[in-house]
């Protein structure tokens, strides 16, 4: 190495310069690293800032305002704090109680709403004759708006409508589908399921695409019946898909039935088809009780929060099992 042979006079200086230069570089490197470290530390915050700001400004802030508003009065008491008066009034209102009871009914009917698309998807997957045709036909109602669906079924289910005419022709008495409180809520839920099961069906079919067909073949070779195949092979393999459909169907039922109710029953007969959403709309728009409506909205929000958290925990547990 030529440097070894250089004079000792030069060496220290040279090395001194080298050290000096190295120090500068080191410092620069350190500085850059520090800067990089700082900017790296802030980068995530900067990157999520737009999303956070949007959520805070457009979601959380209005939510806080709404909750705050629910503790104020209506009409002459507008703007003055009334504590929990609105919530107490809600608890006392038989109409709101009916609305909450109907939420319970929807939860109870959820398995039906999930089982129907699940079964139909199974048949399509098993390639029943005409499965291609059914695949598109089943999806068709999902593209119709609730108002159109409601109008169609208003005609179909009218007292002098085609369904009752058919029942009359086969010798059964007419049913007041939308006028009998015991029947109307099931009629509306039935229409909701009819209108939305197409989407769940598509999710199920996507789930089937990941299903290991050799398992089904093996079951068939072992002589399993259709019921046994569904119960022991298909359902366990699709557990995650089924849970996903449960969550989305529940949310759909709780938040998107307003259009149907508005068109088909107006909450009637006898207030039997009220849901919290419809109640909120009536109080805000028809009764001029915005603060009471805010209180009802807060209650609906809490219900959705509890339902959502329960469902997330169920999904997470299912994820761990896999």
């Amino acid at each position, binding site marked *: 190495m030529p440097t070894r042979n250089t004079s000792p006079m030069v060496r220290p200086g040279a090395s001194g310069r080298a050290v000096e230069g190295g120090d500068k570089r080191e410092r620069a490197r350190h500085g850059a690293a520090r800067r990089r470290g700082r900017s790296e530390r802030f980068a995530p915050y900067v990157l999520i800032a737009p999303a956070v700001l949007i959520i805070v400004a457009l979601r959380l802030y209005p939510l806080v305002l709404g909750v705050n508003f629910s503790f104020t009065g209506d009409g002459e008491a507008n*703007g*003055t704090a009334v504590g929990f008066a609105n919530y107490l009034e809600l608890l006392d209102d038989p109409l709101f109680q009916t609305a909450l009871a109907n939420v319970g009914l929807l939860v109870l009917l959820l398995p039906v709403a999930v089982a129907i698309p699940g079964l139909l998807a199974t048949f399509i997957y098993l390639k029943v004759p005409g499965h291609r045709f059914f695949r598109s036909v089943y999806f068709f109602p999902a593209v119709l708006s609730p108002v159109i669906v409601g109008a169609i079924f208003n005609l179909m289910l009218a007292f002098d409508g085609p369904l009752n005419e058919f029942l009359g022709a086969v010798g059964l008495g007419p049913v007041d589908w939308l006028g009998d409180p015991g029947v109307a809520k099931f009629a509306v839920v039935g229409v909701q399921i009819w209108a939305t099961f197409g989407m769940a069906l598509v999710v199920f079919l996507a789930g089937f695409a990941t299903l290991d067909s050799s398992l089904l073949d093996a079951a068939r070779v072992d002589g399993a019946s259709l019921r046994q195949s569904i119960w022991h092979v298909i359902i366990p393999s699709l557990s995650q898909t089924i849970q996903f459909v449960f969550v989305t169907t529940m949310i759909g039922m709780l938040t998107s039935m307003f259009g149907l109710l508005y068109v088909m029953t107006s909450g009637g007969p006898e207030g039997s088809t009220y849901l919290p959403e419809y109640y909120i709309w009536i109080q805000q728009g028809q009764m001029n009780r915005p603060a009471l409506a805010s209180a009802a909205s807060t209650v609906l929000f809490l219900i959705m929060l509890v339902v959502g958290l329960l469902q997330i925990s169920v999904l997470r547990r299912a994820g761990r099992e896999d």
Partner: protein
Amino acid sequence: MKRTLSAGVVVLALTVAGCGSATRPASTPTESAGAAGAASKLVVWDWKSGEPYAASYIEKAKADFAKKHPNVTVEFVPQPFEQYYTLLGAAMQTKTGPDVMLFNGGGQIRDRADSLLPLDEYVAEDKSRLAGWEAFAKDGKTYGAPVTLQGHPIYYNKALYEKAGITAPATTWDEFLANCDKLKKATGAACFALGNKEGIGPQFWLSGMGSGVLTPAEYDDWIAGKRDWKSPHVKKIFEMFKETGDKKLNNEGANSTAMFTDIFSVFNTGKAAHIIGLMSDIGHWKDFGEFIGPDKVGIMLAPVVTEGATPSLPYDGGIGYAVAKWTKDPKAAADLVRSLTTTDALSSFSAEAGAIASDTTISAPQDAPVVGEIVAQLKAGKPALHVAMDSKTIDLMGRLSQKLLSGSATVDEAVEELAASDQEN
């Protein structure tokens, strides 16, 4: 789990934060900034100005207003009626709404009176020319000027009457029931066309039949707010309503038939002989006349049930314009309301929209003889009973009426619940 907890904390924080604190105080006094001369703009909300039949009415009103306030521009914003009060409620909450707005008379305007400007000092001159002011008044103050009159005549199908050999409408309830029998046997038509899906049926019933059941004193007390729910006559009105269900006098499936779309066609197609309809806007003489013939539409007064009752046509101000409290130029806004209720503008509206206008000095359209009968009844007419009630009790009455028809509530239970709600509000 962590996320569950933090979400819970957020909710708790929100709940606590909400307690006690309130939004800004209700009313801030509006200063009258724009004097009559200064250039400014008035915004009007309604659900009529977008309709073709209202075009010449709006034009005439605008022209009249321009003469008084040449520097003030007026913008009409038609809103969809289904969402009108929802939108208006939100606008009123923020106090950024229109300066002038259309209202239905009765509960809708009274419930919002605290956001409206009393118009008495501005409209004094119009008081005797226009009818129907009571529906726009609360606690002795007038908050709106009527454009149309809305009422509930009992319409009947003269062709069906002829077929059944009935020469004149009944004057007593028993006679009326007998006529219903005859009509059913001769024509197969139901006695009443009743659409009670939205629960509107009992409002029309209460007002249509009430004057034949309540004594004049009871009637006036009811309108004045002294409603005696313990009176056997009040109960009788609801018993009669239930009777129409029990005796199958209504069309089938009344609780699932919509009032404003389906039930009028039941009457129009001769499937029912009577309907308690409206006078303006929809479901009135003009609509019915187009189907069953203008000369076949008749109106009758409520059959008498109680001795001493004097049947009269129930009507009120139908729709009318009001002024918001927060408007910057109350005088100009009130003048616009006056321009919207001139004789000239109203006669246009009456002729083209098929409405009974509030102006008593204009003559009704001549192509329908029944209009003459309605107008003749106006003088002796009284405010409708249901318009005097608050919207919450009206809503409750709708649900209870469905229960009465289906048999899941008794008349006693219904009247008791209504009394409690009426006295509370």
